[in-house]
């Protein structure tokens, strides 16, 4: 496979995954805030800031006035903002386009339909009453795409590269959500009846990661800070946990790099190292110093991505 095309497929996977998490974050936060148990979690500017923080908008911190329509437009459909769902989908399609001979017609057709759905979505509708419709469509279409990737492509190197992109991105987005919600939980503590450890924000976080139901099933108790973080970070059976993503990345890099000898400069070596480190972590270590943990895992993910670029996409 061409190195350039591999690079494009990797990013196609990342952009598809990214658009899903942003869409769900928007919708879950918006709708769960409507009847949130405390005043702050119910306040619209608080929720909108959380959205901006999650997508990495630098304006998020400033105490400037915040306009709901603008925020929803910027994150959803603004062609000028780099993080918008529109741009993510556009990038996913561009990347798919340059690998069009390699991927299945079915996958390309679905990406193309997704793209046309997004660019034809009326921004006025989105900011007025279309948020639920828009985000539901995005999350459903990304699920279709994942299905097409898995069900119609050869499970060869191209597949491994796409899946590495998907899983590195998934881990990254889950961490960004944890980061944003952790911050929200800190800020919201002390409001009426709400302590940090059993803040309402943990429920929201689980829903953002589409993991709330399964978490309840496993723990059979309302979520608190420890159980939520444990589930989303360390539980290898939760498909959206960091641990599961690292396991997936490891599995796929082994498909790509079949050498039996360890080469300490290989991407596979780095992935294996990070993965085993997290396998033997326990939640108390992390929970005590969550900020450091977030920075650490983000920088590890960047390292993996950069190494892949050097090893495989160098053209």
């Amino acid at each position, binding site marked *: *496979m*061409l*190195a*350039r*095309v*591999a690079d494009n497929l990797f990013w196609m996977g990342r952009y598809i995954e990214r658009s899903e998490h942003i869409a769900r974050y928007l919708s879950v936060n918006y709708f769960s805030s409507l009847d949130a148990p405390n005043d702050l979690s119910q306040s619209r500017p608080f929720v909108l800031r959380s959205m901006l923080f999650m997508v990495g908008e630098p304006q998020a911190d400033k105490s400037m006035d915040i306009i709901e329509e603008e925020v929803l437009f910027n994150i959803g459909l603004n062609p000028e903002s780099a993080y918008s769902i529109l741009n993510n989908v556009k990038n996913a399609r*561009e990347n798919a*386009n*340059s690998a*069009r*001979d*390699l991927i299945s*017609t079915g996958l*390309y*057709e679905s990406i*193309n*339909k997704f793209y*046309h759905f997004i660019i034809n979505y009326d921004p006025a509708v989105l900011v007025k009453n279309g948020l639920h419709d828009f985000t539901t469509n995005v999350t459903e279409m990304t699920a279709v795409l994942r299905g097409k990737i898995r069900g119609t492509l050869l499970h060869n*190197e191209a597949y491994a*590269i796409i899946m590495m992109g998907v899983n590195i991105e998934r881990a990254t987005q889950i961490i960004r959500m944890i980061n944003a919600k952790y911050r929200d939980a800190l800020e919201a503590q002390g409001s009426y009846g709400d302590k940090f450890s059993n803040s309402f924000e943990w429920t929201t976080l689980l829903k953002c990661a589409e993991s709330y139901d399964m978490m309840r099933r496993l723990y059979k108790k309302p979520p608190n800070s420890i159980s939520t973080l444990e589930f989303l970070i360390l539980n290898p059976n939760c498909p959206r946990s960091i641990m599961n993503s690292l396991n997936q990345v490891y599995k796929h890099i082994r498909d*790509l790099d079949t050498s039996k000898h360890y080469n300490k400069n290989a991407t596979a070596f780095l992935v294996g190292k990070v993965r085993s480190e997290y396998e033997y972590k326990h939640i108390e270590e992390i929970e005590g110093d969550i900020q450091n943990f977030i920075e650490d895992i983000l920088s590890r993910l960047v390292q993996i991505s950069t190494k892949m670029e050097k090893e*495989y*996409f*160098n*053209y």
Partner: protein
Amino acid sequence: MTKIKNQIFSSYQRNPSLYDEIYDNDGNVKDVYKKLFDLYGEHSIDDYASLNVKARSSFFNQGITFQVYSKKKSQEKIFPFDLFPRIIDPKEWEFIERGAIQRSKALNLFLWDIYHEKKIIKQGLVPMELISSSGNYLHQMMGVDPPGDIYNHISGIDIIKHNDGNYYVLEDNIRCPSEVSYVICNRTALKRALFGVFNHYQTHTVTDYAENLLELLETTKPHGVDIPVCVVITPGMYNSAYYEHSYLAKTMGVELVEGRDLFVENDFVYMKTIRGPQKVDIIYRRIDDLFIDPLEFRPDSSLGVPGLFAAYKKGNVTIANAPGTGVADDKAVYTYMPEIIKYYLNEEPILNNVHTYHCSRPDELKYVLDNIHQLVIKPVDEAGGYGISIGNRLTKEEIEEVKKQVKSDPRRYVAQPIMSLSVHPTYIAKKESFEQRHVDLRVFTVLGKEKEFVLKGGLTRVALKKGNLIVNSSQGGGSKDTWVLKK
């Protein structure tokens, strides 16, 4: 004007002075079309309109589109496609096929000759200045032996039916003839929309183009290569024919590369893969001659591969079509095709040539200038239907303007009698009815080493504007599925 009974054809107006592909002179539907005519007639025009919309959205969703750039933003459009197919009976097709192969072979021998001994020129059959003054002649190709001795692997010959009922060749496109992917897309779309009609006709498949193309390209592999690695090279995803490039690569199962994916080392070509360099033996290029190698041709080209031509000259890589092939699809060379066929093959031409006046010859120039109103004036070196003037459509002022242009550079122009392209019923969405529109036929031929292939179908192109004779997609043309019937 005759009116015909049949629901969707009830408003079809037949102009008896035009050659209609489905009606004979007495207004009866021809035998091969009878069944189809009845089947389509069972639909109401509303049914038909909704099928038409569905077919269009299928094209759109599959991304079979081209970009239209306007001031504000670029827009994606689909190529207009007509759901009423054209049918060619087996006898007629057999004739077209033999004629197409004959021309491709003759052109290949002609190219070999003019890049080697130039016998045909020395014998005075074709004038030297015709070759040397052509913008597509590459002196770098002199004495170069292309692998497998093939120059024009891929040809797309444009054929029309005149109102005398005979086929004539308008052009032999042997540079990078495109649009073959639309043949296959049209068939797919028609099968999806109106699969029932296929039960009543034995139609040849068109989906075997890519496999034959790859097989024949592989027969022209460089010397000493066992299992050749073939790639398709594209200018990139913003090229208007990118869909076709990716389609061809996908269906051949080979890599679609850009210039930056390839490099040349010690006169061998390699592509950059995730496992390091891999040698490339055959390049089906969709980049024009002057852009393939900045070291040899245009130095500002970023689309090509530095050193590619040197590797080619050494015989280490096949380029299809060979560089310099364009010299033979010059419209002035076209006029010598009967002589070229006789000279190299010792055969009579199977397909007719349209009689052509060379403005470079003083007596013919005079005839052209005096008779512009009944001629088509064409620049010899333009493709895509650009620069063509049709005499009987011009105002007096325009005629004077054309005269001035021709006089200023006679070598650049040829003239032909105005051919009346046959017409075919075509659904016109705006009017929600079928109308007569002019059509031509592009036939795709592949030459390999001692082997050749003609795609049994080809692309029927339709001039969608009423009365228009120019069918090119860049000039608002559409297309039709084309059925070649089995014997």
